[in-house]
């Protein structure tokens, strides 16, 4: 599984990988996408809507990323959560809560818990396992989608891979927009699905700007990401991805 947070904020990056989208080998397709992603920096502003049958919450945030293993997310609204944030370095994740003014390293025991109350777990967000090595990717089908080629790729985790899913099915366009990412359990039952509902071209790049994670058995429970501002290849100050920065928002 790829770095979920990056996926959420940055799957548009696939869009930037224009070159080898024609690859018909699924393994290669993903490898190229990731290789091309290395070293790219991004800044984005987004809202996350957590929807439940009886309530709904909207969280606004800013995010900085550098490559695959560094990202910082800072909440800007609502007020009570303002300035709290998460820092991801490699496999490790830290959270900062301004109210108690403490940085907590998310222990592995909390990895299964929900990230900010959403339908993403800390684990979903923090894991940066090598997507290439942990899965066997198979190109199931190639379709057409609004004038683009759409690759349907099935990723089955290896025996010892730290992945609980039985399989994952990704729908990726030739411009690397991820249209859909479905997670199946080991009996082949759909558990949850990430779908893209809005694609925009920003600074010359085509990216998914609205994505929704939906639990298969709970129609009324979902989390939706909407990116409003996205900038690539910006200069990010060196101390951005540090614990002290996490604690002291600029």
């Amino acid at each position, binding site marked *: 599984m790829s770095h979920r947070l990056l996926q959420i904020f940055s799957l548009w990056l696939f869009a930037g990988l224009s070159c080898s989208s024609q690859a018909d080998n699924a393994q290669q397709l993903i490898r190229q996408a990731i290789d091309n992603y290395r070293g790219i920096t991004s800044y984005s502003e987004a809202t996350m809507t957590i929807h439940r049958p009886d309530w709904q919450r909207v969280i606004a945030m800013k995010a900085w990323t550098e490559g695959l293993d560094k990202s910082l997310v800072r909440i800007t609204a609502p007020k009570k959560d303002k300035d709290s944030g998460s820092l991801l370095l490699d*496999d*490790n994740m830290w959270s900062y809560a301004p109210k108690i003014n403490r940085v907590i390293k998310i222990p*592995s025991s909390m990895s299964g818990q929900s990230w900010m109350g959403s339908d993403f777990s800390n*684990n979903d967000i923090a894991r940066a396992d090598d997507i290439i090595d942990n899965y066997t990717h198979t190109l199931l089908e190639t379709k057409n989608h609004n004038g683009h080629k759409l690759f349907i790729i099935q990723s089955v*985790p290896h025996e010892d891979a*730290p992945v609980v899913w*039985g399989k994952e099915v990704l729908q990726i366009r030739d411009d690397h927009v991820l249209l859909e990412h479905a997670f199946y359990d*080991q009996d082949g039952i759909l558990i949850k699905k990430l779908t893209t509902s809005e694609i925009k071209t920003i600074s010359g790049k085509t990216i998914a700007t609205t994505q929704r994670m939906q639990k298969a058995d709970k129609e009324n429970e979902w989390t939706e990401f909407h990116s409003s501002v996205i900038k690539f290849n910006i200069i990010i100050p060196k101390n951005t991805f540090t614990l002290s920065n996490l604690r002291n928002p600029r």
Partner: protein
Amino acid sequence: MNSFLLIFSLAWRNLWRNKRRTLVILLAIVLGVWAMIVTAAFMRGMIFQMLEDTVDNLAGHVQIHHSQYLDDPVINNSFDPDSHTISRITHDPRVLMWSDRIRLPAVVLSERETTGITMLGVNPARESKISFIGKSVVEGRFLNSSSDTGIVIGQALADKLETRLGKRIVLMSQDINNEIADRGFRIVGIYDAPLDPTEKAFVFVGKETAAKMVGLKGAISEIVLRLHDTDMVTPLVTEMDQLDHTIDVMSWLEVEPYLELMIQMMDTSMFIWYLIVFLAMAFGIINTLLMAVFERTREFGLFQALGQKPRFILFQVWLEAILMIIVGLLAGNFLSWISVMATGDGIDVSVFARGMEMINMSNIIPFVITFNDLMIANITVAVLGMLTGLYPAWRASRLVPADAITRI
């Protein structure tokens, strides 16, 4: 001697003079003794079962850890199993068997659930002999070798994770560099432990597989030992704990201090229970004998008129009480023995299982009669009963003969 024989036959015959009343009070003594012994046996059984479960439940008789491990059971607090100290301990003739483990807190994830557990990386051959796991795998198999890549989890955990035999789950822990270490494991076996909490708490993987996952090279977290005899535990622990200050050698009682507390608590509550039962009994004895003395007032006057000394009268009535107690004790012990025999392996308390599991207990509780408990119950009844019988006897001996005789 003559007088004693006379007094004895008088006491014995008087005992059966009012058969119904004697039988009622005998019944009270018998039931009291029975209640004492059986309760003691039940409580003893409970403790015994708890100890067995604890020992069986991975604790063994003696445990060896890194000196910091119990405060902080992390990977860095591990030790070298091949050191001189360790081999000296494991080769001690008092040791029946031992098992070495990598024991780390971990998180287990399935498609639907995530929960904290303790990961045990074991040598399956050694582990299956020493702990319950050897005979508890109910589905699939236990691990084949230390480098088996499968995992064996408890039934309750499988239910909680909504997974089952043949599925993969993911374990996540920390490696020696404090980085996340994770790995997928296929469930090759499901075990059924006496207690749900055990099933939910422990997963078994191969020791080598676990070592590879967390980056341990040869070091382990604990060794548990089972000795030939539990009496050897304390001497061995005392002796071995001094060998190496980086190594902590402790008995299961130290590991589970609440057990010792529990034993003390049970001893105390048992004693209180004895007293309560006895008080009920004592009232019966005093009442019956006082009534008997009252009814036989004239006879005691007569005895005095015939020249029997007051102390013999006292002894006569007292002997009656003593005989009553002896008969009651014999019957009570016999009844206890029968009930304990009749229950066989123990009492199935699964009806209360939920409560029992909360206090960490199995569903089947065996009766354990110890010589000590038997003695305490019998001596309590005998000694206190005799003291109780003394009062009516004293009353009988204090009667003024003339009054006694005129009262018809």
